[in-house]
């Protein structure tokens, strides 16, 4: 098992450590519910150094990134960030990721669980004059998320980052240390993600925490448990659950990440075919009437017939009712459709609702 640069911090904070994607990671520190609440109402801080970073440089870098991803990287301005997917030729998803356009390269930030797979995939599909470097161990990554995040971050950066738009990044200095900050996150709240050289991780974490104390803003350390609920409450997909090798971006409601008119990319033909022929299932959001919690793998029924499966589910602490995402056969994906979910041999009624479940986040679009 590997440790992130923040490992000692988690131990100091009494984090409950679990094995996740080859790393020892905190699943929670105090209580998952309190951590979620901290992010929705104030500020939460997450060690996300387990995420992978792959750097693509060279004269063909842009063309290559556009070849392996579905979104159009050519529209990115310097320091702009883009959410995208990488596909298999068959149209299934290799990973969902962020692409940062940096001065001399494109930085791909990939899921922790897919680091090795993605790197190998990219290497095996290499085209043209590009350098592909696995930078995953070189960087720490800290996410600071919540409606009051800006108050904290502007105290520690050299320049006020208030004007940094959603999905833009910039180079910054925190106590003289060079970092990359971006207005991004996985919670539906306003927030920043901070990247820098791994040995600086602990120091930057402490500086953020101290800044919170100075301005009397409570910053709650959050583990993987809270991170999973926060993303689910705003309907963000989790690779391995809601999107996999077996699902396409069209089925997952991620067609906004696919730019058919940008030129060729891996998986394009399969998606065109799927668009033309149509497809039978769709990823939907569901709200349950009971208090039982729907979980990954639970079957979904319509009038006694199985029509789908839950991919992610939880009790939403923010909304105070159970929520779930899952694939269902058409036409049962339509908003308002009543469905049943089998939870420990009982049929529990649910209703298809629009995503995100939690619509009042502080995110700046």
């Amino acid at each position, binding site marked *: 098992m590997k440790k992130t640069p923040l490992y000692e911090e988690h131990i100091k904070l009494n984090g409950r450590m679990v094995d996740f994607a080859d790393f020892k990671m905190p*699943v*929670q520190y105090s*209580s*998952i*519910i309190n951590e979620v609440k901290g992010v929705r109402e104030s500020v939460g801080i997450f060690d996300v150094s387990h995420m992978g970073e792959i750097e693509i440089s060279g004269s063909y870098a842009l063309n290559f990134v556009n070849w392996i991803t579905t979104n159009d990287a050519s529209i990115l301005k310097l320091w702009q960030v883009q959410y995208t997917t990488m596909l298999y030729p068959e149209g299934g998803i290799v990973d969902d990721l962020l692409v940062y356009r940096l001065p001399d390269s494109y930085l791909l930030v990939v899921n922790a669980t897919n680091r090795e797979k993605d790197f190998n995939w990219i290497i095996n599909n290499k085209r043209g004059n590009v350098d592909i470097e696995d930078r995953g161990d070189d960087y720490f990554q800290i996410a600071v998320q919540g409606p009051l995040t800006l108050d904290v971050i502007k105290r520690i950066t050299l320049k006020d980052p208030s004007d940094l738009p959603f999905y833009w990044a910039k180079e910054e200095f925190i106590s003289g240390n060079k970092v990359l900050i971006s207005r991004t996150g996985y919670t539906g709240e306003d927030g920043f993600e901070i990247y820098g050289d791994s040995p600086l991780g602990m120091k930057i974490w402490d500086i953020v925490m101290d800044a919170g104390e100075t301005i009397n803003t409570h910053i709650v350390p959050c583990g993987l*448990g809270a991170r999973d*609920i926060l993303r689910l409450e705003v309907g963000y997909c989790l690779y391995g659950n809601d999107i996999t090798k077996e699902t396409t971006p069209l089925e997952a409601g991620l067609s906004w990440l696919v730019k058919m008119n940008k030129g060729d990319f891996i998986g394009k033909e399969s998606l065109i075919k799927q668009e033309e022929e149509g497809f039978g299932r769709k990823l939907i959001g569901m709200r349950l009437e009971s*208090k*039982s*919690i729907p*979980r990954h793998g639970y079957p979904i029924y319509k009038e006694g017939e199985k029509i789908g499966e839950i991919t992610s589910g*939880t*009790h939403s*602490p923010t909304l105070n009712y159970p929520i779930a995402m899952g694939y269902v056969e058409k036409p049962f994906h339509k908003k308002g459709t009543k469905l049943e979910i089998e939870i*420990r041999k009982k049929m529990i009624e649910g209703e298809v609702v629009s995503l995100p479940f939690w619509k009042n986040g502080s995110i700046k679009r």
Partner: protein
Amino acid sequence: MEILEELLYSKDHEWARQENGEVIEGITDYAQSELSDIVYIELPEEGIEVRKGEAIGTIEAVKTVSDLCAVLSGTIIEVNKELEDHPELINKDPYDAGWIVRIKVGDPEELGTLMEASEYKDLISME
């Protein structure tokens, strides 16, 4: 981790408090801490007969779900209805306000199969 001397314990991490031929059952401090963030509990009906070790309810925590097993055989004579609206009482106060059911003991000899506090302490130190 709090373990009360005066209680008896099961290997499934339930505790039993004896009171005139009845036992009050709950889950231990260790169990609530492992589950953490309990958000819903499905309680058994009052009046039903249960056998020791049988699943009589379900405890839903944010990250996981766990069966509640009968600590002894007998009849469920009362359930803690407070838990329907406040399941978090099990996290906050597992040995008192977070009690779950009251059982009229069917077979007093079964009490001998439960663990004393010291044995239970050994059990969780191994987990």
